[in-house]
């Protein structure tokens, strides 16, 4: 096992080095300022940005750390509220097959709509671009959790519900000690998909609304033609995405159970 792991790490590093090499080679022929920046230029920008991640020189010039925090704050609010709503609704639907079937067509219609398509309506109704972005996050993280929760609850083995019925557990106990833990693996799988799509949506939403956030930062740097910053921001977005997913992966392992 140990040797295997070492080999995987070696391959991984080699592939990374090869990609960087190809990138550097492909931009090497251009004179400075023309064509895409190479990894060395990006690394230089990254070092500058990471030296002062939280500086604030007014609305159009903030450190990348601040921008990421702004995005994460929006993500947190929209995602947490959406998850609570989705889990509650999913449990209700999962426990009542007739209601599930009645509501399912609407879910199916709403699910494939890009969360960004709602943006004009949100802007028109709440007239606040920051909250409109939060609502976009809400919409993007609602459906996977909702669908997975309902699926998980529908598929709870009847035996567990029988035990709950025989023990005459109160609805709260039944929910907390039987239904939620039984459906937890499915629910967390939904939460994991949701946080991925929410993180994808936030960048686009912030490009539209402007002001703060990593999406706005990318667009602003593009307007400044600062491509090294754009590339570094792209990498940062990817890394944060990995961390968010890893956090939920941990939660999923904690709540997993086998029969």
């Amino acid at each position, binding site marked *: 096992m140990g040797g295997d792991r070492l080999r995987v790490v070696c391959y991984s590093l080699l592939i990374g080095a090869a990609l960087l090499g190809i990138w550097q080679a492909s931009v090497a022929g251009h004179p400075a300022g023309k064509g895409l920046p190479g990894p060395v230029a990006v690394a230089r920008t990254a070092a500058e940005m990471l030296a002062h991640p939280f500086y604030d020189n007014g609305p159009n010039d903030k450190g990348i750390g601040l921008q990421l925090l702004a995005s994460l704050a929006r993500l947190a609010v929209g995602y947490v509220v959406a998850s609570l709503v989705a889990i509650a609704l999913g449990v209700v639907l999962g426990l009542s097959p007739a209601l599930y079937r009645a509501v399912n067509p609407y879910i199916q219609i709403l699910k494939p709509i890009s969360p960004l398509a709602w943006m004009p309506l949100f802007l028109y109704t709440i007239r606040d671009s920051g909250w409109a972005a939060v609502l976009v996050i809400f919409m993007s993280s609602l459906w996977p959790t909702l669908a997975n929760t309902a699926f998980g609850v529908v598929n709870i083995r009847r*035996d*567990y519900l*029988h*035990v709950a*019925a*025989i*023990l*005459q*557990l109160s609805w709260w*106990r039944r929910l907390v*000690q*039987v239904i939620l*833990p*039984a459906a*937890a693996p499915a629910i967390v799988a939904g939460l994991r998909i949701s946080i991925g799509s929410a993180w994808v949506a936030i960048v686009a939403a912030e490009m539209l609304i402007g002001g703060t956030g990593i999406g706005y930062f990318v667009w602003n740097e593009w307007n400044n033609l600062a491509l090294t910053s754009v590339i570094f921001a792209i990498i940062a977005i990817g890394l944060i995405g990995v961390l968010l997913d890893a956090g939920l992966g941990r939660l999923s392992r904690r*709540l997993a*159970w*086998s*029969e």
Partner: protein
Amino acid sequence: MSVAFLEIDHVSKDFGGVSVFDDVAFGIAEGEFVTMIGHSGCGKSTLLNIMAGLERPSAGGVVLSGREITGPGMDRMVVFQNFSLMPWMTVFDNIRLAVRAAYPDWGRRRVGEWVQRYVDMVGLTGAEAKRPAALSGGMRQRVGLARAFSTEPKVLLLDEPFAQIDALTRGVIQDELVRMWSASRNTVFMVTHDVDEAILLSDRIALMTKGPGARLTEIIPVKIPRPRTRAELIDDPEYLRLRNHILHFLVEAAQRPGATEVEIAASMGRLPSQTSK
């Protein structure tokens, strides 16, 4: 005729217009151990679920100490064939869930002590923190028994409790059931297709014909004094007589049109793993 402690009052059940069993009527005295034997599909587990309050009869009803059963209740606990332990809970928490439900006024400490008592009683001391997935079938059913007994129900409903346990362990756990039941003297209704198990454990054995439209044909008293041990039972003439009687009944029932060889073999106790509900 006086009304029994647990009265199965002309119960019928049909699914989608097809009768599973029809007009089943018998009584169980307080503290009595009654077993029902029948082929797969005779509806014996369905009858048990009706007694548990998990299903409703199509006609008739079940009356427990003068009150009709309309739903599940803490006065009746079920031990399930597939154990039905919560896989996300430890052994201790599985039993504690039941104890807290049975004694809502008890404090945390008293509940804990009570749970531990039953964990010890079924010989699972040291395995409290394990989850069911880490236990063998036999150990899981010990948790199932501890969970059921810990709530001190008036009636224990055992739904083929040993069917999924390997033959060698089965005997040990049957002995444990007898030991716990001898101390608690709950009224027990068990369904099984294992003839030896029925004779070893029961005061009376109810025989059901094959479904659909199964009927209760007779209830045989087991006049073998307790305590019974497997070793003594083998040479007991009464045991042999009962065993033959029941096996003949099952084989004849199975040889009605539609029965397969597998079912006949299963009724002889040779293929216990192949018969399921």
